[in-house]
């Protein structure tokens, strides 16, 4: 089963670390991720650039509007996400519990939704309407 894990970064704490400490943390995270890959638990993942790089796209009165942001004033920023292949939720919790990144902020684990039935239903609706 797939679990999408959102890793948050305490930016204030991060800024207090020396360059060496930051490097050690980054190395530990990558080493752990490599272990996840080797064990077949890694189903994907990306680091995120800062929220100042974000754009919001939405529909406003039927027109596409693009704006900056959102600049949420938070101490903890979403720093990256990884997709775990795990036996169950407790296995995913265990895998994240040992992730060195946990020292820099909390992780949110969300089970991937099983959309198979929804997709089948949708395909049926679309084939009927053709």
């Amino acid at each position, binding site marked *: *089963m797939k679990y999408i894990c959102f890793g948050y970064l305490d930016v204030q704490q991060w800024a207090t670390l020396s360059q060496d400490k930051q490097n050690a943390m980054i190395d*530990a995270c990558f*080493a*752990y991720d490599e*272990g996840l890959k080797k*064990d077949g638990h890694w189903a994907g993942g990306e680091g995120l650039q800062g929220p100042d790089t974000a754009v919001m796209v939405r529909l406003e009165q039927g027109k596409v509007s693009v704006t900056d942001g959102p600049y949420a004033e938070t101490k903890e920023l979403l720093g990256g996400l990884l997709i775990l292949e795990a*036996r*169950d*939720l*407790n*296995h995913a*919790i*265990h895998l994240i*519990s*040992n992730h*060195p990144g946990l020292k820099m902020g909390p992780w949110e684990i969300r*089970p991937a939704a099983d959309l198979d039935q929804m997709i089948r239903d949708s395909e049926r609706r679309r084939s009927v309407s053709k």
Partner: protein
Amino acid sequence: MASIAPGGIPDFLDSLFRSESRRILASLIRLLGDFDLAEDGMHDAFAAALEAWPRDGVPDHPRAWLVSTGRFKAIDRLRRSARFSTSLETLAELPDEGPSGWVEEEGVEDDRLRLIFTCCHPALPLEACTALTLREVCGLTTEAIARAFLTAPSTLAQRIVRAKAKLRDAGIPFEIPARADLPGRLEAVLKVVYLVFNEGYSASSGEALTRPDLSGEAIRLGRLLLELLPDPEVKGLLALMLLQESRRAARVSPEGDLVLLEDQDRSRWDRALMAEGKALVDQALASRRVGAYTLQAAIAAVHAEAAEAPATDWGRILGLYTLLARVAPSPVVELNRAVAVAMRDGPQAGLDLTDALLARRDMAEYHLAHAVRADLCRRLGRTEEALVSYRQALGLVQQGPERRFLERRVAELQT
């Protein structure tokens, strides 16, 4: 031994995982003293086998090989993670590898029993015990257990994490309790074993009605417990499970639909299981302490004794349910008692009792209470009321075959 061709190793390991992984895990938990580390180690060991066995051949004792390799790999993991941790405490706490580094095959069953008693430790709340036993001893996923307990997976996962932390922090030893403590510790274990059986006999949700492997697991645990402690209630529980199991083949139609006890083809009941169950009931009833499991088993034995459904001794069943309601009062027992009353005294008497039960808050959400009411109304010819109750039951039912059964009844009434 290496009689398996290299190409057959993946399939062989798959079946080995299915049949042996829980035993291997139990041994690794004893050796490593940590549930999660043991699980990591076990998976590493199977991965290592997938690499080594096609090259070197299957070892003479595959399970011992996997346990030994799993322990070695887990210790290796600890060493690696200790390199990144700021303190060396973890390294200092590494388990001793032992003189040979090899793990004996003997005592594997004891490891499973140790694991059961640890998972059912009185320091843990009962709900944590059942969750932990189902996950660690039986290998269910957190999500499947959550479904069985009608709980959110996130709640159940936290329960399991807290339970493991409690066992670790309280330094609870991984052991079989001393003989003097056994009876007290046993009650929690029996409860858990029966829940496991029920999950296999009447899977709480999903399309499949039963999961025989889980029930078989519960029966095996029951036999193991009986060996350890010939307590009347262990006999009662094992008897109950055997008698229910004896009806498994007749309980589901070839289409996978539920067949009620009264409609079952009794020639398909497993005579050997029935005989074993009935003998155990008699032994348990002969003891002076008759508990809830023994009474339920005695009820199942009355059904087993009836060659045809109409020959069932409902008077005796009602007497046993009345006793059971005193020993272990619960809404479900009351509901079953109401059914026995209906069978002995007619549907109206049963309906009166069922309506009184449905007025209680704890029963209003229980699909079987509505299904019973529907069935009694149907027998009384009160079709409209029956339909309303069937629909209420349908709104609450979780299990595919039960749902189809109710839908068939609704369809029959509407024609």
